[in-house]
């Protein structure tokens, strides 16, 4: 596929991600931070995000699986998840964290499990999307083009 087309698909894809709420302005900020001294900044941050999120989600699953759920711990995890997702601009994941925290406050295990389910879904979605995005980027780079900036 030629570069122009790839770039257009990239822009479209990126725009749709913003439009559909998967990413927000913070992601754009990340992109701005990427420069010649730090060429892979975004990928690094996002990879870190994936690692941390998966770890946190596992921890959450385990915590909620206990007979006596330690809601404080759960809340702490969710807080971290919220923090990291907001730093990366994964808006939907971040939005899921708010009701999750409410459920923790109410100490409602059922509700927490539902929230967890939801977050997992969102997380998978956004991971998928970002990976697609990065693939597109790589394709563009491989085809010799420059990655277009999307505001």
């Amino acid at each position: 596929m030629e570069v122009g087309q790839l770039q257009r698909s990239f822009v479209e894809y990126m725009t749709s991600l913003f439009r559909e709420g998967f990413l927000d302005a913070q992601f754009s900020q990340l992109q701005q931070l990427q420069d010649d001294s730090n060429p892979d900044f975004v990928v690094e941050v996002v990879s870190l995000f994936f690692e941390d999120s998966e770890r946190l989600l596992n921890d959450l699953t385990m915590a909620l699986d206990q007979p006596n759920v330690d809601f404080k711990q759960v809340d702490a995890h969710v807080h971290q998840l919220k923090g990291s997702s907001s730093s990366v601009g994964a808006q939907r994941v971040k939005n899921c964290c708010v009701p999750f925290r409410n459920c923790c406050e109410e100490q409602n295990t059922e509700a927490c499990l539902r929230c967890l389910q939801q977050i997992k879904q969102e997380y998978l979605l956004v991971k998928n999307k970002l990976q697609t995005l990065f693939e597109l980027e790589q394709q563009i780079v491989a085809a010799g083009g420059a990655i277009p900036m999307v505001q």
Partner: protein
Amino acid sequence: MVEATTRSPPSEPSMHFRHQLSSIVDSCNCIIDLQLPADDLLMKYQYISDFFIALAYFSIPVELIYFVKKSAVFPYRWVLVQFGAFIVLCGATHLINLWTFNMHTRNVALVMTTAKVLTALVSCITALMLVHIIPDLLSVKTRELFLKKKAAQLDREMGIIRTQEETGRHVRMLTHEIRSTLDRHTILKTTLVELGRTLALEECALWMPTRTGLELQLSYTLRHQNPVALTVPIQLPIINQVFGTNRVVKISPNSPVARLRPAGKYMPGEVVAVRVPLLHLSNFQINDWPELSTKRYALMVLMLPSDSARQWHVHELELVEVVADQVAVALSHAAILEESMRARDLLMEQNVALDLARREAEMAVRARNDFLAVMNHEMRTPMHAIIALSSLLQETDLTLEQRLMVETILKSSNLLATLINDVLDLSRLEDGSLPLDIDTFNLPALFREVLNLIKPIASVKKLFVTLSLSSDLPEYVIGDEKRLMQILLNVVGNAVKFSKEGSVSISAFVAKSDSLRDPRAPEVFAVPSENYFYLRVQVKDTGIGINPQDIPNLFSKFTQTQALATTNSGGTGLGLAICMRYGVSQFLGVLSVCDFHFAMFVNLMEGHIWIESEGLGKGSTAIFIIRLGIPGRANESKLPFVAKLPANHMQMTFQGLKVLVMDDNGSGLAVVYALVWLVNDLLIRVSRMVTKGLLTHLGCDVTTVGSRDECLRVVTQEHKVVFMDVSMPGIDCYEVAVVIHERFGKRHGRPLIVALTGNTDRVTKENCMRVGMDGVILKPVSVDKMRSVLSELLEHEVVLES
């Protein structure tokens, strides 16, 4: 006084006299011989008479003096003296006369003459005086008569006054008795009893008008107990006569109102009747005295005892009149009291009912909110599942048809998700539990940002968008920035959305009081003050317009307008209604802010919003006015906040700044010493990395630390700034700040401490102030923001509100 003529000079005259006398006697002797008494006898008689006369003459003054002395009052003493002198002299004359019967010396004659002369003098004077005195004496008598009459008259008047005073006393006593109670029946009964007693009446009766007002019913009597309630029609001439005047009227004992006792062999006493006005509450106007134009009267009938000759006296009638008036007043007081007690009871009942209703309403609202919250959550979950899975489905291999279907599913479910969000927010808004996020922000920048956001879409639609801000708009204002942006975006967005071609113009200016008084918004009585001003924003478009008849419906829930249903605006009538009211962002994709509730927000900001349109196809203008605060009037906290979009920033790099980044997880990244410290107390690796990247991008030398202890261990004077994230609950980030203060003491030596936080509430601000932070930054932190923060920090060593 006969003697004078018979007297003659002493010696010779006596001789002469004897001769005469003898001649007379002789001559008489010739006539009457024997019967004539002798000379001597005559002489004797004269002698004696003179003596007695003298005696009397002497005793009379004595008596006079005696009696005058006895009576203290006698005005005419001088007269008495005169009189006395006169009498005495007369007496003296007669006395002296005694000596002149016989031969007497010349001395006696002299004395006699003197006496006579004096007597003559005095008697003449007295006679003259008497002319004056006797009339006086007579008038004394007249005056006496007059005074007697007067005294009798005064007596009579005294009698009258006394009677009046008695009457007055009786009235006072009666009044007191009557007014001492506020009970209607007691009042009336007491009146009758007291009147009966005071005037010694045989019977006293009170006829009250019935409810219909057509009859008078015998309500109270003094003595006779009437088992059957007598009534008389009210239109009797006698009754009309009594009601026609406020005076007591004498009536015949045979009239129907006075015939209370069966007829018998007795002479009924006189009967009088008087009207008693029954005043209502409504008669007492504020400025009028109760007008007796009231038509309701009662009739009081008073009967004197029969078989007595007693008659009604004037003072008794007056008493009755006064009492009738007093009764009227007392009755009206009683009526007023009754009514007010009834009103009070009613109010209490109403209060109880209202309280109950309020509690029920509160319960209902709470139940609704709980329900909504639960439902919302319940609804969101499957919604998200649908959205998520549809998205995933989109990634798989699909035929074109299938792809279209999935896309439609996604679009619809997105819309539905937004609607669900709106429903929950609406209920919170309606309760007023959605607080405004008040802060200082840059107003022109806000408008420009809105413009920037709208421009892409407008240009796609080939619409011309202009912005004009009046010059008297303040640059920085206090208000809810986020929501104002939402309002603007929605209004402008709608303008763009509903215009196929032409232009959209946004103008903003300070609302003057004339423009504030809009006939459509009469309740916005806006008074700009020193601390506030009213912002008026007009968004005019050349779009499809609105039928003026539909304008009132726009802002009500769930109305459809024909025009909207037929255009391909991508939304239903419901959509527009919700859009207009709550602002669903159906077309704004760049900013995915979900919930616009701009009309509600406009209300929260104490403003008003309305739309004007000439008609269909003629475009429309949306206008809203909201109240914003003016900063710098000592109504904001002292803790500085960084503006989101600083007016101008410099492309600065911060070479060689040492930064320290602290993280709670303890996994501690590479600690790179820098002049700027970054202490992230809470954020996990990802955000730490991001922030580090941010600062590195700006040219700082960043050091990150993993815990408070590590931070305190590592911090040195070389580090210029310590960034600390304080939004983690349960961790006392402020401790580090305190320690740093203690350790490094005065300002110039120590690193500046800046807090990063996600919430702008007072508690956080206060805590930061307390521990002496040099600045607070709102997350999320953009590159520009961080840049400006650092430049300010290094310039002023404090992050000021810009």
